């Protein structure tokens, strides 16, 4: 299966090379270009070492670790409720979504299930953080490609979503709102009407971005057919989320996994795209924001009454056992393998973050592209540094 992928890759390189190379005799010695760690395209401190032949990448290797905070070690000296404050900061743009799988894992080990209302609110906040995260991606995408305007639209409309999250949780970026057994609080008054109107704004934002960016021919020529990742390669590297669905794999953990969350109670679609190129990845994300607004709208209308907190002991001790819970986070599959030895804190937590896998494909996919395409491909793979380094 690998061979097929390599062959596609080679064909792509060959077609690019034919364009670029007038004469083999003109070939010169390569140049090594360090992209990052301080570089606008890496939004964070990722470093890409690229060996160039002219403007063409012969070999590229990302070098992460400038932001490694050792969360896996830190979780071992903290109690379960304290860990959520850490994992918030893994993918800092969609932070509430990071808390959920960890809390679900702990709940699974404890045999606790959050009440229906808490599950609904969790799902709403989860989707709101997805919208906040991905809408910024859509704006940032423009900047990476040289269009400055979309990012301001994105910041403008993300602010509404952040206000909602702040209104409900008290924190714009690091809500730390999820508790084992439910949530810290119920939704504030007026949240439902406000959220409905914001979701309408976000759908307008999606239309705007679609018109401004996705419909643009330059944008299409910069992204279509660039950085193609075939299905089997994507699976092998463990790509997840929109990156995987853009390669034509119809797999969404929200739909296909049986979690005590409210996704299965509402009507929405999993978006896939057969092409697997940069355009497909961006397009899938754009559509997912639309679907998320639909999910939020429906959940708000069907919000059940009742408590938001199950009965859990005041001092949380998790029984012995192991559990892996992963959810479909804005960046992809985010999972925690929690090992408990009956203590107040976890014995070991393996954090399976989406960007780590998503970015590990970079050496493969960057082979043979042009320097500007590095930026496009990195932007379309969409990583967040905290999510790579943890």
């Amino acid at each position, binding site marked *: 299966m690998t061979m097929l992928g390599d062959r596609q890759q080679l064909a792509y390189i060959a077609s690019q090379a034919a364009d670029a190379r007038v004469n083999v005799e003109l070939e010169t010695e390569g140049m090594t270009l360090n992209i990052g760690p301080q570089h606008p395209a890496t939004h964070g401190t990722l470093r890409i070492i690229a060996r160039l032949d002219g403007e063409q990448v012969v070999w590229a290797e990302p070098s992460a670790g400038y932001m490694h905070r050792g969360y896996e*070690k830190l979780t*071992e000296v903290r109690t379960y409720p304290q860990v959520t404050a850490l994992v918030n900061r893994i993918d800092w743009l969609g932070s509430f979504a990071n808390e959920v799988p960890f809390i679900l894992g702990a709940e699974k080990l404890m045999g606790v*299930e959050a009440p229906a209302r808490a599950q609904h609110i969790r799902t709403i906040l989860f989707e709101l953080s997805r919208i906040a995260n991905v809408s910024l991606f859509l704006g940032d995408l423009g900047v990476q490609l040289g269009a400055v305007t979309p990012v301001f639209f994105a910041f403008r409309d993300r602010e509404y979503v952040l206000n909602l999250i702040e209104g409900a949780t008290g924190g714009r970026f690091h809500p730390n709102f999820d508790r084992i057994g439910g949530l810290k609080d119920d939704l504030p008054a007026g949240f439902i009407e406000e959220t409905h109107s914001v979701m309408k704004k976000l759908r307008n934002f999606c239309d705007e971005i679609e018109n401004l960016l996705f419909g643009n021919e330059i944008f299409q020529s910069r992204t279509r057919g660039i950085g193609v990742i075939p299905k089997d390669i994507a699976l092998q590297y463990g790509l997840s989320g929109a990156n995987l669905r853009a390669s034509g794999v119809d797999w969404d953990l929200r739909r296909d996994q049986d979690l005590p969350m409210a996704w299965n109670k509402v009507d929405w679609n999993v978006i896939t795209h057969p092409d697997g190129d940069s355009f497909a990845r961006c397009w899938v994300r754009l559509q997912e924001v639309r679907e998320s607004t639909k999910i939020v709208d429906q959940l708000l209308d069907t919000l059940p009454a009742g408590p938001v907190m199950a009965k859990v002991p005041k001092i949380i001790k998790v029984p012995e056992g192991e559990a892996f819970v992963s959810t479909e986070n804005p960046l992809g599959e985010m999972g925690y393998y929690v090992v408990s030895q009956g203590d107040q804190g976890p014995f070991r937590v*393996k954090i399976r973050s989406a960007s780590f896998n998503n970015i590990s494909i970079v050496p493969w996919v960057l082979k043979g592209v042009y320097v500007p395409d590095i930026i496009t491909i990195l932007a379309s793979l969409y990583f967040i540094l905290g999510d790579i380094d943890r």
Partner: protein
Amino acid sequence: MQWNEEVSPLSSTTDTTEAPRDERREAELARVVAALGGNVVDSLVKPNDDMWIRVTADTWRATGETLKSLGYTYFCFLSAIDWMPSPFGKGEDDPTAPPVERDTTIKHGYTGGDTRFQVLARVTQPFTSLGINIKVDVDDAAPVIDSWSGVYAGANWHERETHEMFGIGFNGHPDLRNMYLPTDFEGYPLRKDFPLLARIVKPWPGIVDVEPLPGDDSEEGEAS
């Protein structure tokens, strides 16, 4: 979603309770175990939750290949577990006080184990979302195991991370460089006997101002 069930015992070999059945996962695990044959040391299904198997170290790579051919094409993660409890506890010791002696007896998790280190990987069948956690014992004296990077390309980075964090070698890995740490860094940070230095150089503020735990009024004086 029946998570309120009693927690299953830690190994199928001691399975005596009438836990709820999960035909889908049990059938799947039977299929996997049959395909892997003698490689499997132990296996476990937690109903409506997950599957675990433990394989022998010399068949690690073959296990990966078999699983891939069984439809587990999605590589989720690969890491390791150091089962020795930390001699530093939660890092909340007073650095000025004499060191605390702690019990470091190894207590293994699901599917048991014989060694301090276990490599843990997870692969998933896309579409069905059935995942399987594969554990393998790694020799404590020479913690080396075959690499999966030829089987699942994504294992490359995970093995690099495991190598630098646990000091476990991977035979056949193309490039076991450090990802996060400086090249000349000594020690393996995620091993339990590697102290969390931030907690050593400066006392954890939790030592100084211990809040009374809820419903625990009597121990208030202990902190001061």
